């Protein structure tokens, strides 16, 4: 389509049906408006082909005596591997690249796992986080949307009685995105995960972070020895069960969705997802993946009294988890965080 910018139209209000003809938007802004559905104020638009843009690995706090030690914990979090800028380079096809250039942000796991219902093994997850804050008075909605892909490491063949011993989709337990938020003195973590496979059972459904009615001790696997609050750190807390239930997550009805996992572990298809929440009423609003949209209105978040010194915090984050002793990877081409 031919774009004919008009020099004096810089103030034209965005209209998705006509913007091709009536604005002076840069190519970057046209791509932003075409690939994403940002709310009125864009807090972050990160295309990872340009760099890390402040996204880093989530690690524990180094605050303890005598040597900047890590507080005692039930779940070892210093084994989550580093996030990196990936060219998605594989043995046979070479470099896959990204949707917006050569590099995407890659989360990975170590080749270790525990059974679904056990405490996550050190290194069985990878987390990426960016640290932001509220800035607009009266802001109600908060949204994260991204273009992503995922794959398992093309390391060794599975048993040769398997029809496709070199296809490792079942190694990917889950991936997801969401926020860590504190506003008006309440902290909550909201997010959505694709539970792909647990203990080898391929389920491929979407679930939102929302805690069952359990005690703080039950939230911490019934164990003492950690600072645990129901609803906080749902990625690795909350008891999990052999039937796939997780006390930290709530299944979105009718959410079975087979995403594109394209024939081999070295093909990536870039896919879209978007989560919108209401920080005024503290509830979920909507989730979209590919061309499907789920209405989540009326689902309240799990909030707890706020922590010291982090009011107005907005930390968007992504994570990935492995279901086998194999590295799995989650790639993000670009992400938009927006508010209105």
């Amino acid at each position, binding site marked *: 389509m031919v774009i004919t910018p008009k020099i004096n139209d810089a103030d034209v209000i965005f209209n998705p049906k006509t913007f091709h003809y009536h604005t002076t938007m840069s190519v970057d802004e046209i791509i932003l408006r075409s690939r994403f559905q940002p709310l009125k104020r864009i807090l972050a638009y990160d295309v990872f082909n340009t760099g890390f843009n402040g996204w880093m690995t989530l690690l524990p706090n180094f605050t303890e005596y005598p040597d900047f030690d*890590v507080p005692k914990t039930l779940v070892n979090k210093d084994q989550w591997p*580093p996030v*990196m*800028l990936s*060219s998605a380079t594989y043995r046979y096809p070479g*470099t896959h690249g990204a949707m917006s250039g050569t590099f995407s942000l890659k989360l*990975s796991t*170590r080749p270790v796992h525990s059974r679904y219902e056990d405490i996550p093994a050190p290194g069985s997850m990878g987390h990426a986080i960016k640290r932001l804050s509220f800035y607009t008075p009266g802001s109600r909605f908060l949204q994260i949307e991204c273009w992503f892909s995922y794959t398992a490491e093309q390391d060794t063949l599975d048993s040769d009685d398997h029809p496709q011993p070199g296809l490792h989709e079942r190694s990917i337990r889950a991936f997801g995105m969401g926020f860590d938020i504190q506003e008006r003195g309440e902290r909550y973590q909201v997010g959505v995960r694709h539970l792909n496979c647990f203990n080898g059972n391929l389920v491929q459904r979407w679930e939102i972070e929302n805690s069952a009615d359990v005690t703080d001790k039950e939230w911490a696997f019934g164990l003492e020895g950690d600072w645990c609050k129901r609803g906080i750190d749902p990625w690795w807390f909350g008891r999990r069960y052999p039937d796939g239930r997780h006390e930290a997550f709530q299944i979105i009805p009718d959410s079975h969705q087979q995403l594109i996992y394209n024939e081999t572990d070295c093909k990536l298809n870039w896919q879209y997802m978007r989560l919108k929440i209401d920080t005024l009423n503290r509830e979920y609003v909507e989730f979209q993946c590919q061309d499907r949209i789920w209405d989540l209105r009326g689902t309240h978040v799990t909030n707890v009294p706020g922590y010291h010194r982090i009011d107005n915090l907005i930390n968007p984050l992504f994570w990935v988890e492995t279901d086998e002793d194999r590295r799995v990877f989650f790639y993000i081409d670009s992400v938009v965080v927006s508010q209105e």
Partner: protein
Amino acid sequence: MKQFNASHLEIKKWFTGTLYTHPYEAGWADEAIFFVMIEHEKGDGPTLTARVEISHDGVVWASDGSGPVTFSGKGLHPIKVQPNFGNWLRLAVEIEGGELFLNIQIHCKG
């Protein structure tokens, strides 16, 4: 302006014997340095020998052609990676004579 990034590879953990750092993609960078920090040690003067390895897929690894580097003692021990490393990098580490409490980072610029 150039890009720079430091990533952890191992944090505050005891090691002995052989370890390989997590496969790391650094194709965007022109230069890379592994920083090995020995925070504590146990045993009879343990030594650490490190070799830089490169890969075409992050699964199969080969020496980058540089010689192994051996050191001992608490403190910071940088290992500068030869240029032309391509994309995938890891450090192959052999610890003898005891245990070492390590932090390992990779710093990249390009």
